[in-house]
């Protein structure tokens, strides 16, 4: 690849892409004391702009360009119909503060999506407001806090988090001023029940549980785990990042989970967008509905013919608003479209095929790569990227080499409890040929690791750019194409 110029380097004074009409109204004097003198922005023509971004896009790996088994992220196909429905003008052009009678279509869609998500997981109600998974977690833990405080149990200041949990879990708890206590996994990769019991006292606020856990395994004692927490007066928060394994398979509320966030951008096929927007609705059991962030959509009245009128309603003990307006509405339209296309039968098939694909890959790889816990996996699994007889090879080398075969690496070095972890999530939308190709590549890389380790150390060899100097990035800290003259570069 030749080095890509930045758009500022392509800029030429006086060049233009779009133009705007001159004002048709009588002119008002501009407020001189507030006017800016200069503005540094690129000046390019339209073709240059389109070509620039098209060329940039071609440097990316996406689900559309190749296999993307990034564990815990559920990189499934993003149906194109979703993109069409979300852009229907009635949805796309409505203003969030329009009177409810002018947005009954939006409100009905939100009402039904709340209902469908609640049904899928067994909850009483769902808020669609949170903007992403971590934002949903924050919502959920705030609900735990408010509920306990309202009961007067202000001594409950401790959240338990399994050692295999996502990094967002402890960060979320800390934002709620809760003390974080890590719970060990047992020899089969489950939460260690004795370690859990030992922490269940009257300072317990709750447990953050991921099921299937980040090892891709179903928590074997999930109902017992929830019962232990409940008996101690705590609540169970479910991290729904792994819901793709459970659609029509089991309802998390029936495990004993009280609160759960969904990732519409994982399970329900809304695109990941190069790092968002996500969407992280939160479902709760009956006694927590009043604590949800507002507003929710409810049917507030029916006319004489029984036609419902939908409106926005704030629950009575609401933790408050989590963001402006009503959530990532465009993502809701996509997720709703996806649920409609699948129905109950289709959603169960989604999880069945996701689990089938993961188990197939795990079985094909288990003689070559070490599997830390040999059990049937759910929608993803973890392998170790290391061999005793290839001591210089690390998971990172394997990951980097996969790029040379057009495959996005799995999640690497997570979960933290597995050495040299590679977390593989194929998703249900990959066909058998792609899975077999992945196996072939993984076996070839294992062979190279033993016979030609230098290839792995140098990999990737065929990507637009080679391994990057991350130390320099953090040390020199260049965060901007052209710095305004008076700005000094950050230290």
């Amino acid at each position, binding site marked *: 690849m030749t080095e890509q110029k930045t758009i500022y380097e392509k800029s030429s004074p006086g060049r233009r892409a779009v133009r*705007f009409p001159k004002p048709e109204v009588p002119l008002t004097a501009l407020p001189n004391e507030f006017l800016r003198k200069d503005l540094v922005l690129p000046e390019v023509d339209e073709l240059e702009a389109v070509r620039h971004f098209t060329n940039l896009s071609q440097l990316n790996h996406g689900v559309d360009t190749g296999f993307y088994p990034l564990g815990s992220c559920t990189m499934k196909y993003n149906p194109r119909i979703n993109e069409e429905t979300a852009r229907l003008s009635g949805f796309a052009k409505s203003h969030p503060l329009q009177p409810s009678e002018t947005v009954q279509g939006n409100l009905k869609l939100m009402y039904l999506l709340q209902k469908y998500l609640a049904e899928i997981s067994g909850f009483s109600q769902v808020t669609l407001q949170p903007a992403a998974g971590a934002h949903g977690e924050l919502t959920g833990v705030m609900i735990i806090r408010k509920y306990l405080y309202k009961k007067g149990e202000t001594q409950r200041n401790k959240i338990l988090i399994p050692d295999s949990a996502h990094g967002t879990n402890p960060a979320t708890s800390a934002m709620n001023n809760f003390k974080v206590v890590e719970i060990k996994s047992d020899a089969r990769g489950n939460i260690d029940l004795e370690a859990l019991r030992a922490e269940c006292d009257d300072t317990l606020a709750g447990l953050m549980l991921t099921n299937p856990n980040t090892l891709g395994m179903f928590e074997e004692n999930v109902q017992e785990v929830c019962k232990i927490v409940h008996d101690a007066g705590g609540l169970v928060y479910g991290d729904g990042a792994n819901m793709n394994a459970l659609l029509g398979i089991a309802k998390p509320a029936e495990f004993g989970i009280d609160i759960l966030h969904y990732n519409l951008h994982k399970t329900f096929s809304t695109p990941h967008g190069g790092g968002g927007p996500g969407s992280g609705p939160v479902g709760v059991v009956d006694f927590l509905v009043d604590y949800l962030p507002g507003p929710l959509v409810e049917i507030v009245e029916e006319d004489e013919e029984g036609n419902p009128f939908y409106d926005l309603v704030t629950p009575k003990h609401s933790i408050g608003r989590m963001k402006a307006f009503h959530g990532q509405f465009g993502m809701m339209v996509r997720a709703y479209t996806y649920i409609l296309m699948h129905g109950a039968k289709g959603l169960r098939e989604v999880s069945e095929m996701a689990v089938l694909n993961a188990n197939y890959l795990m079985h094909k790889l288990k003689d070559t790569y070490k599997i830390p816990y040999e059990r049937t996996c759910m929608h993803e699994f973890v392998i170790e990227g290391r061999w005793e007889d290839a001591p210089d090879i690390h998971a990172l080398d394997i990951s980097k080499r996969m790029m040379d075969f057009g495959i996005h690496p799995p999640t690497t070095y*997570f979960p933290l409890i597995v050495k040299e972890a590679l977390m593989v999530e194929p998703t249900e939308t990959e*066909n058998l040929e792609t899975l077999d190709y992945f196996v072939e590549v993984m076996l070839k890389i294992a062979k190279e690791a033993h016979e030609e380790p230098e290839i792995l150390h140098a990999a990737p060899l065929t990507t637009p750019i080679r391994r990057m100097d991350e130390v320099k990035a953090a040390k020199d800290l260049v965060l901007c194409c052209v710095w305004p003259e008076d700005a000094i570069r950050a230290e």
Partner: protein
Amino acid sequence: MFHPHTDTDREKMLAAIGAKSLEELFEIVPEDIRFPDLDLPKTHSEMEAYNALYGLHTKNVPGIRMPNFLGAGAYRHYVPAAVDAILRRGEFFTAYTPYQPEISQGTLQAIFEYQSHVINLTGMDASNASHYDGATAAAEAVNMAYGISRKKKKKAIISPALHPHYRETIDTYFKPADFDIGGEDLDPWSNPDTLIDSIDEDTACVVVQYPDFFGRVFDYTALGKAAHEAGSLLVMVVNPMALGMLKAPSEFDADIVCGEGQPFGIGLSYGGPYLGMLATKKKHVRSLAGRIVGETEDLVERKRGYVLTLSAREQHIRRERASSNICSNQGLMALAATIYLTMVGKEGLREVAELCYQNAHYAASQIAGLDNFELVTDQTFFNEFVVKCPKPAEEINKALLEKGIIGGYEIGKDFDGMENHLMFAVTELNPKEDIDALVSALKEVA
């Protein structure tokens, strides 16, 4: 449906696994709760799903073009055609967080350019890769200020003229913390310099909006100076479109700038997805929340490229000691803003901003000329202004709607004693013809 498995595939795969049936893979799930019946709609083909969604969208009024004067944090602006054409490239929207720089240079360079645009517009030295929206970015800005004080300063003074949703969001975020959110009892119409009296040694930051919720443009120099003298920070929440013509926040010596990037090429979409902007000065870059992209070189050929950097601040490394729990942000919306700013460029952004300003001032003067309507906004404003109507704003809006016009925002919903007040937002998409239609409709309904 999108899973490609044929019956033959399934049999082959089950045989490879050594399972007799699909059900066998789920034996670990407690039997009494396994395979629940889900009460959901029937399976729809793509065509049926499209028709169902089409039907729902027609239940909204704006399916047809209609003059619309709502703003209050979400604005109608023209989006050049190239923005969506590029956003729809699968290489961009089907990728995720660029953890692997070798195969993510497209996303990384686009974010780097986004950061550059934000830095140039705000006069800050560092921008993150985006936040959820303006309100959550404001909450993160307060959290940053709290962190920068090493959690010693236990109070934020929030301007009463900050968007009420933003205030509520900040309130929600800080309820669990031992931290006060002040400023609520002050008069939203007073000059922001009245906030100076509330600043003390315990104030981590002062938060103001520019233009403020009511569209007014104030000079925050004195406020910033007073904040700094007390060892606290000035946080400015901006409408970045206004920065196309107005002074950068750095000229008021702002320490943290956040705001809603939706005006830059992002459709209204009933409130989201939008774009949270968050930027700061160089000395606070390590307290910035969220992803940051930095320039570097590859190790082999020393070619310039980009990576996520300073990740030691983030949740996946620092866990409970992270500066924020944010993981997914608004990558695609940041890309939309980047393309938008490239398309309109230096001249174009100034043109759009001035069109908004001119149209809004024309509308304000025309409405002020009506009997019974009073222009309440009495100083510099950008593209929003407040009018006192001769009867409740709700009634005026209902009457406007009957005439095919979506009126202004009823600020009495958020502020006591303002039941007769309407706030109108005017952009380049409210041409003279629409404004004249609004003015004559107001005359008739009053």
